[in-house]
C-alpha cells in the first residue's frame, strides 16, 4: 500500500486504499428466478473511475448482476448501494446510471440525433442545451455525417457508436455495458476497445462492462471479477488474474494453462516442493505455499512460460518433464507444441518462433524435455 501511494500519479488502484469509499457496494446480493439461483450471495466493491469487468461464461450470472445495477432486476436479498444511496426501491428511470445494451436497443423510429437527445429530453432541459450536448456526443463518437439517419440506415459499427453516445449523453455517474462489442468483427472490436478506454479516461466515468471475452476484459479493465455459476471466483487486476489465479477454475478460464495434480513434499520460506502425479521428477515453485505436507495441491504453468528442448536442460533436477512431441501448431509468431508425457497426459507449450521454420529442429515424435523456471508456476489449493 505504501508503494502504491508513493507512485500515486502513475498507478490507479483505489481498491488498495484503506479509507477509500467505494462508489458501488454490492452487499450479499442473491437473485433467484424460481428455484434457479442466478446470483449466489455476491459482495463486490466498485470504485469511482474504475473500468470494472464482469467476466465469465454464459449463464454465470454476470448479465443478471449488471441488470440489477441498472434496476431491471430486483435482488431477492441483499442490497446495492450506488454513490451512498440504497437502490433497492429506486426504479430504472430514476437511477444515476445508464446502460448500453448488447442489442444496442436503438429506437428505430428516431434519427441518430433524436436517439441521443432522448435521455436529455426526459430531464426537460432547455432546447439549446440539449442540442449542444447532442452535438458534443456526436463529435465524441465521430458520427457527424450520420446525424439525420435512422438506425436501419447505419452499419453495425455505427449503431454501436450511437448506442454509446446515447448512454453517455446524460453524463451518468456510471455506465453499464452489456457485451458492447459482441456484434462487431474482430478488427473493429479491437479498435473500439481502445476507443472505449479513451472515452472512459476522458470523461472520468465509472464503467462496468459485462463480457465473456477474456482478452477484451484484460485489455480494457482496471479490475476483473471472474464469475462462475452465480458466484465470484476472483477479483483482481488483469495481470494478477493471469499470473496468480486463485483456483483451477480461474486459471483454466483465463488463458491456456497446464495443471498438474500433486502432493506437497517440502515447504520452505521462499519455495516449496511438490511431487506431481505426472512425473517422478518433483516440481519446485518460487513461492512458499500455505499447505501441510502431503496435502493435495495443483501446480499451474502457462504454456508460454515453458520450454521444449531436445537435450535435457543443464543443472536442472526439478521442473523437467520427459515426453514426445505429439502435435505442432504453427501460428506464425508462435508455435504450439503438444507434448505427450509418459503417463499419456498432454502438456501444451507455446514458444516464440525466433528462428525461421527451416531452422526448426524439433519435429513430430521427437523425444523432448519440457522445463520451466521455479517462479513460472503457481500452486493452487482448489
Amino acid at each position, binding site marked *: 500500500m505504501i508503494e502504491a501511494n508513493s507512485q500515486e500519479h502513475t498507478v490507479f488502484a483505489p481498491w488498495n486504499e484503506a479509507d477509500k469509499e467505494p462508489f458501488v457496494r454490492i452487499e450479499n446480493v442473491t437473485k433467484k428466478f424460481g428455484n434457479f439461483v442466478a446470483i449466489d450471495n455476491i459482495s463486490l466493491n466498485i470504485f469511482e473511475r474504475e473500468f470494472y469487468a464482469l467476466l465469465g461464461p454464459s449463464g454465470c450470472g454476470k448479465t443478471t448482476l449488471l441488470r440489477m445495477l441498472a434496476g431491471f432486476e430486483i435482488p431477492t436479498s441483499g442490497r446495492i448501494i450506488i454513490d451512498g444511496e440504497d437502490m433497492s426501491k429506486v426504479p430504472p428511470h430514476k437511477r444515476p446510471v445508464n*446502460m448500453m445494451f448488447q442489442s444496442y436497443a436503438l429506437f428505430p423510429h428516431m434519427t441518430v440525433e433524436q436517439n441521443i437527445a*432522448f435521455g436529455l429530453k426526459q430531464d426537460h432541459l432547455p432546447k439549446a442545451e440539449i442540442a449542444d450536448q447532442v452535438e458534443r456526443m456526436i463529435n465524441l463518437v465521430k458520427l457527424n455525417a450520420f446525424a439525420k439517419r435512422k438506425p436501419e440506415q447505419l452499419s453495425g459499427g455505427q449503431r454501436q457508436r450511437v448506442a454509446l453516445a446515447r448512454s453517455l449523453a446524460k453524463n451518468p455517474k456510471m455506465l453499464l455495458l452489456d457485451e458492447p462489442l459482441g456484434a462487431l468483427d474482430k478488427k473493429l472490436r479491437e479498435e473500439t476497445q481502445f476507443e472505449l478506454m479513451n472515452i472512459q479516461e476522458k470523461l472520468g466515468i465509472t464503467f462496468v462492462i459485462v463480457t465473456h471475452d477474456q482478452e477484451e476484459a484484460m485489455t480494457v479493465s482496471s479490475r476483473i471479477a471472474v464469475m462462475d455459476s452465480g458466484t465470484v471466483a476472483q477479483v483482481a487486476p488483469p495481470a494478477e488474474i493471469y499470473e496468480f489465479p486463485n483456483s483451477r477454475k480461474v486459471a483454466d478460464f483465463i488463458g491456456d494453462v497446464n495443471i498438474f495434480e500433486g502432493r506437497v513434499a517440502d515447504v520452505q520460506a521462499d519455495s516449496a516442493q511438490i511431487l506431481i502425479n505426472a512425473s517422478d521428477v518433483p516440481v519446485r515453485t518460487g513461492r512458499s505455499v500455505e499447505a501441510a505436507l502431503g496435502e493435495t495441491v495443483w501446480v499451474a504453468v502457462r504454456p508460454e512460460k515453458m520450454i521444449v528442448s531436445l537435450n535435457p536442460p543443464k543443472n536442472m533436477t526439478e521442473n523437467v518433464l520427459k515426453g514426445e512431441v505429439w502435435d505442432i501448431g504453427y501460428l506464425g509468431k508462435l508455435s504450439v507444441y503438444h507434448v505427450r508425457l509418459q503417463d499419456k497426459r498432454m502438456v501444451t507449450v507455446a514458444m516464440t518462433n525466433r528462428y525461421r521454420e527451416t531452422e526448426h529442429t524439433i519435429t513430430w515424435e521427437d523425444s523432448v524435455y519440457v522445463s520451466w523456471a521455479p517462479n513460472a508456476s503457481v500452486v493452487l489449493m482448489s
Partner: protein
Amino acid sequence: MIKSWSWFNKVSLIVGFAFLYVPIILLVIYSFNESRLVTVWAGFSTKWYGQLFQNEGIMNAAMVTLKVAFLSSTLATIFGTMAGFSMVRFGRFRGRTLFNGMIYAPLVMPEVITGLSLLLMFVAISLDRGLWTITLAHTTFAMCYVAVVIQARLNAFDRSIEEAAMDLGCPPLKTFFVITLPIILPGVLSGWLLSFTLSLDDLVIASFTTGPGATTLPMKIYSMVRFGVTPEINAVSTILIGIIATGVLLASVLHKRRESQRKNDELLASAIP
C-alpha cells in the same frame, strides 16, 4: 420469373380467376344497366347510382354501418392491443395456454352462436338494442383478431428497447406511448383496418344484436334482395367493392414502398463503413 407459360398454367390461371371474379364483374356491369330488370341489358346508365343516393333507407343504413364499423374497430383495437400486450408480457403462468386458446376461440366460433349468445346477454341485462349493441358485439369478435395481430407483432419486439428508454429516464407509461406504440403502430393499424372490414360486412351477428332503427347496410341489402334484386343493390355493392379494393391496393402499395425503402437503407448502410 416464369418466362414461358405452359398451356396448363394458362388454363388453370384463367379458370381460377374466372371462378373468383366473373360473378363480381357481372354484378358491376349490371349496376350500370339502364333496365329495371337485372338480367336484361338495355344500355349504359348511371341512373341507379343517382337513385341510390336519393334512397334514404340505404343511405341511413350506410351511415349506421360506418358508425358501427368506426366505433367498434377503434374499441376493438384498444382492447385487442391491451389483450395482446398482456398475453405476450405476462410471461408464463398457470393456464396460459387456456387463456391463449380462449382468445383464439371466437375466431372459429360459428357466428350464429356468437350472435345468439350476445343477444341473450343483452336481453338478460335488459340493454336496449340498437346501434350500441351492434357496436359492442362487433367489438367483441373483432378484438380477438386485433389481439392476434398485436401478439405476433410484439413477439418480434426487442424488449431492451423499452428498457433503454426507461434507463434514459422515461417512466414506464410514457415509454409505452413514445416508444412501444410507435414501433408496433403498423400492427395496430392493420388490426384496426381488419376490424373495420369485418364490421363492415358482418350480417349474422348484426341481425342478432340489432334493434329498432339500427339497420346496417348488409342487413338492408339482404332484406331488399328478399323482394327481388334491384339495380340499386348492384350499385351499392359496386361501391362497396370499390372501397374495399381501394383499401387493399393502398395497403399493398404502402407495404411495397416501405419494403423497397428498407432495402435501399440496408444497401446504403452496407456501402458506407
